[in-house]
């Protein structure tokens, strides 16, 4: 099963390597990984999506907590959370294709961030499913390149 882990770490050299090394050294899988600063100057947030059964994910979470540079690990799978990923696509949009590509862009609430004679760069944000669906649809026009951020996620606020 896919799990999204939110990991709060000290922002210091080598921390990414400690986390990545933990995954490779113990044979765990990293599907996506995202690291960025937080509001606190010396802390970073990592979001890792990984694959594994309950026992493996329990080990992953415990091993991550054991790293001296880790403050907090939350498994967002199973709690109410929002997940988003951003992607840039370079799509072939020559001549007659262009109108149809732009229609899809509109339906998916994407943004066109670069236009040239024969192609468009499209920015899209959403869940992994949405991004997958868009790739599927645009594939027949010719996707030349994609760049994805990997998932970021956050627990939802209390509803009651």
């Amino acid at each position, binding site marked *: 099963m896919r799990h999204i882990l939110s990991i709060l*770490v*000290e922002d210091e*050299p*080598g921390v990414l*390597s*400690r986390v990545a*090394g*933990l995954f490779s*050294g113990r044979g765990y899988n990293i599907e996506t990984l995202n690291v960025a600063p937080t509001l606190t100057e010396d802390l970073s947030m990592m979001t890792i999506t990984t694959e594994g059964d309950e*026992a493996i994910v*329990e*080990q992953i979470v*415990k*091993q991550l*907590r*054991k790293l*001296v*540079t*880790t*403050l907090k690990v939350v498994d967002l799978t199973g709690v109410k959370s929002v997940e988003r990923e951003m992607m840039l696509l370079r799509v072939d949009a020559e001549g007659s294709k262009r109108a149809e590509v732009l229609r899809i862009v509109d339906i998916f609430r994407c943004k066109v961030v670069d236009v040239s004679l024969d192609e468009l760069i499209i920015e899209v944000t959403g869940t992994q499913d949405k991004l997958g669906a868009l790739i599927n649809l645009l594939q027949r026009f010719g996707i030349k390149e994609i760049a994805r951020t990997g998932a970021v996620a956050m627990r939802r606020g209390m509803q009651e």
Partner: protein
Amino acid sequence: MELTGAQILLESLRREDVDVVFGFPGGAVIDIYDQLPNYPLRHVLARHEQGAIHAADGYARASGRVGVCLVTSGPGATNAVTGIATAYMDSVPVVVITGQVPTPLIGNDAFQEVDIVGITRPCTKHNYLVKDVRDLAGVIKEAFYLAATGRPGPVLIDLPKDVQQARCEYKYPKTIKMRSYNPTYTPNPKQVAKVADVLRKAKKPIIYAGGGVIASTAGDDLVWLARSQQIPVTATLMALGCFPANDSLWVGMLGMHGTYAANMAISHADLILAIGTRFDDRVTGKLSEFAKNAKIVHIDIDPTSIQKNVPVHIPVVADCKSFLAALRGHLEAAPAEDAPAPAERHAAWLGTVAAWKTEKPLTYDQNGGAIKPQYVVEVISRLTKGEAVITTEVGQNQMWAAQFYQFLRPRSFISSGGLGTMGFGFPAAIGAQMACPDRLVIDVAGDGSIQMCIQELATAVCYDLPVKIVILNNGYLGMVRQWQELFYKKNYCATCLDVAPDFVKLAEAYGAAGYRVTDPAQVESVLAEAFALPKTVIVDVVIDREENVAPMVPAGKSITEMILV
């Protein structure tokens, strides 16, 4: 007061009550060595960095204090890696200081540069590259704190040469608090209550003790639990000595080369109290067959050890000593009035376990003219009354020492358990002798592994350390040969050591004493003479060449499937 980085390091070591540093100099640590004579630290100059790190490790295991190792950059640091990994696998508190090329050269493939922080990341508890001298005092404080607390382990500090030379105002932190590191010492009271409850109901309980019992100085608490509740005790290689081997509740070591009684008892128990241990594959054998009938209670300070290999019914994250104290509180506070006494409740079980012990004890064929290695260890045990510090190399020598020496107290058995590092025993004995100058320290060695750090004879002689090395010499890499015999159709490829040094002459060449024994009748008298000699001694005992370690559980089999002789 303003100090250089080198002075800050040494002054901080002094404040951490370090009395001895095991090291080997080089270009990137000359500044530290230049200042060393000005501080009240003894330095033990090893003859190879691997010797230095194993000695620091042996010192830590024998004393319970943090061992300190100082080596230079590049090859000095990489030579120490085997020893760092050894300490990591066995949770030994060691602080390793490595020199590094000056910060402006880092990343330039400079002379004797290596990314030792990168290399040791997976085999240290934590590590640091100090780029600013103002961070140094705090890093040293953290390093000692991390090494010794929680689940102990090695911590490495990489110190560039220019940082050693730079100056800053020195202030050593008195206390320390790290927001991202807070090991759990005290057990959850609810979990302890559950343990007390299942323990009262158990009919066939067993204690399975690990190195955590020794690390947390919980030996006496364990003895109390076992005796007051009448529970048989088995232990891992790492925990030998945590329970006296002459007690009737002792069933011996368990696992691949464990006793018949221990493996049978853990397999038939209805309750396993696993204390400070990690269900290593050498202990459990085939996991799906392990302890199928038992409720498992697992106490460990490291949450990653719990539920890693076996499903646990009652997990308790705690320091062994705190847990045992809390459990004692429960057991003493509420003795149910009508409950039968533990001795009564467990009577049938204790009888069964005792029968297993007498039915198939550890044994060996005592006939024939050759010296049996098991006999040699028995003689060592008898001569030293179980009071020596025994270190071992790795392989058959290690298992025979573990099986046939009667360990009576913690920190008497020092052996590379997790990593299985050949060459560990002799330098570890040097470290142990530094820690315990008044105790007899004996390295039970094989002719193969002793040659891996034999150069440390110079160190032992140089510091007048009366370490004894007893080589169980069979002219083979014996444990691998045993596997080849049993599982590889006797294809003794690369395990016969045809060419070996004359160990007696070698000892003499280094200024130590050497004896050779070939006659069983002389084993006792020669060992007695060697142990009485106040100097470094090698006793080369020529043993039965193809003697095997038994019992043996073949890899991947259930631990009840033992090859007995």
